[in-house]
């Protein structure tokens, strides 16, 4: 056998795996040409954002085997980061330009709170929308995985943490807008391009982020670290005896998944034009969870080391069709 044979067959396999993914993305990108309806386009963009959230969940749950019920926590944190920045870009009616956001005035807040201050910078807000969820997940993961918490306890802890953050946001009305969330936002503007929720620019932004999330998730699943995460899902304790610090791998995949969910949250704010405590609510978190059971569930039954985030995406992006084949990839 020629010495380069395994490599070229590996390349072919890689292309075969990437092809369906790229076809879906091509369809997503071509949709605005066929669909001449701004309202529908916004609706599709919204579903695509939830698709990104599902990809992120597929990464930690389906691929990493982490029974994470609180994925909407990261989603919500991302959406608030974006909403805070866009809120500060509006011209408040009461106080004039660069004044306090309206809901703070209603709540008798005199000065912009210190943690709002950096959100005057959009770049900071975007970085925060990715990094804050990742850091929160890493901190939570540190306690859970260092303590070798597994299974249903992970579900309880992640769900409980999300509920606590949700309650804090509702409770701290003067800083967060409480129940109503943060509404009446300015349009996102990057490099002079304005992203109207019902415009094509926003749709393409979302589509681009779908592609980006898919590629990041794909690259991770194909890395050796991804392989080790699969091995941990399969037989956690065995992995330790090869010298891998299992907790760090779990923390990493958990934080990566949270960052992608944060990205989805930021986009959701742009598409919906507001942020609300319901974005990190139990209902949203669980509905995404049930959005991909056929996808991630396959990972449980084992046998195939298939990239389940991809199936998760397929279940969301196309019609949710229960995959009847275990998948040979």
């Amino acid at each position: 056998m020629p010495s380069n044979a395994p490599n070229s067959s590996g390349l072919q396999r890689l292309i075969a795996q990437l092809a369906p993914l790229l076809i879906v993305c091509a369809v997503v990108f071509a949709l605005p040409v066929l669909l001449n309806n701004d309202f529908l386009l916004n609706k599709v963009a919204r579903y695509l954002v939830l698709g990104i959230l599902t990809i992120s969940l597929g990464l930690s749950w389906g691929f990493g085997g982490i029974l994470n019920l609180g994925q909407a926590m990261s989603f919500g944190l991302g959406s608030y980061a974006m909403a805070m920045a866009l809120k500060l870009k509006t011209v408040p009616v009461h106080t004039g330009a660069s004044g306090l956001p309206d809901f703070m005035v209603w709540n008798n807040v005199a000065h912009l709170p210190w943690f709002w201050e950096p959100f005057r910078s959009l770049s900071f807000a975007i970085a925060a929308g990715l990094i804050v969820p990742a850091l929160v997940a890493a901190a939570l993961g540190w306690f859970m995985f260092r303590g070798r918490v597994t299974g249903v306890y992970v579900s309880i802890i992640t769900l409980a943490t999300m509920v606590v953050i949700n309650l804090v946001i509702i409770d701290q009305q003067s800083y967060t807008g409480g129940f109503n969330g943060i509404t009446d936002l300015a349009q996102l503007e990057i490099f002079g391009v304005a992203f109207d929720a019902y415009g094509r620019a926003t749709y393409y932004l979302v589509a681009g982020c779908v592609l980006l999330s898919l590629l990041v998730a794909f690259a991770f699943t194909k890395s050796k670290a991804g392989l080790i995460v699969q091995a941990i899902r399969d037989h956690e304790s065995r992995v330790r005896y090869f010298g891998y610090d299992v907790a760090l791998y779990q923390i990493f995949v958990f934080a990566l998944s949270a960052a992608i969910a944060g990205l989805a949250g930021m986009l959701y704010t742009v598409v919906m034009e507001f942020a609300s405590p319901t974005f990190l609510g139990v209902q949203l978190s669980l509905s995404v969870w049930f959005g991909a059971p056929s996808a991630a569930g396959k990972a449980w039954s084992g046998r195939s080391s298939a990239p389940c985030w991809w199936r998760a995406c397929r279940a969301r992006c196309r019609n949710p069709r229960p995959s009847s084949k275990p998948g040979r990839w």
Partner: protein
Amino acid sequence: MSSHLDLRDVSVSFNGFKALNALNMSVRKGELRCLIGPNGAGKTTALDIICGKVKPSSGTVSFDGTALQDLEEYEIARAGVGRKFQVPSVFRELSVSDNLEVARARRTSVLGNLRWNTGNSGREDIERLAELVGLTEQLDRPAAYLSHGQTQWLEIGMLVAQDAELILMDEPTAGMTAQETRKTAELFARLKGKHTLIVVEHDMGFVKAIGDIISVMHMGQMLAEGTAAEVEAHPEVRRAYLGSGGISHA
């Protein structure tokens, strides 16, 4: 002469039952030590102590001057200890080649492993390992589809892939045919010298074929140590195996 691995007065109790009772054992570098003993003697527990699966209630384990008893399992593995389990433990969902790839733990950090593993040298390495343990045909099949003997071979191959300085083997030939057992003995003879091995075995034929020095455990203690002939002639060993048909039928 300083020893490579040193267990000093190691005791473990499970709910008051002393599985190990002040166990002492020293192994030299490059040695292949066989560990035998009747069922429940504490052989598996002794290996569990070395690799960190079980923490001793008292006593010390030193390896190359490092105190292992205070380290985490992954730290012990990084210090150069590999372990094969009595119940074959492989990644059943993963393919044979992925199993071997996980075991090739050259880099252990998350960030160091983020690069793609499509390297050619890695693939060649894995094909060589698969040939060594006779699993070339099974490389792309999930490990769940392997027979019991093949699973044993896969785990042995994973330990070769791991390339640990000290290799702990718990009943590696259980469930193998006579021919497969002979092949395992040949492989171990090749590993000896380059690696230090501790092999727990019941098959006396196998033990005689591979072992330099045999350690006999009984009721959590070291009963005797010596060559096969010395051990078999030892009166206390004979007594320990009494009723189980003698040492060669243990």
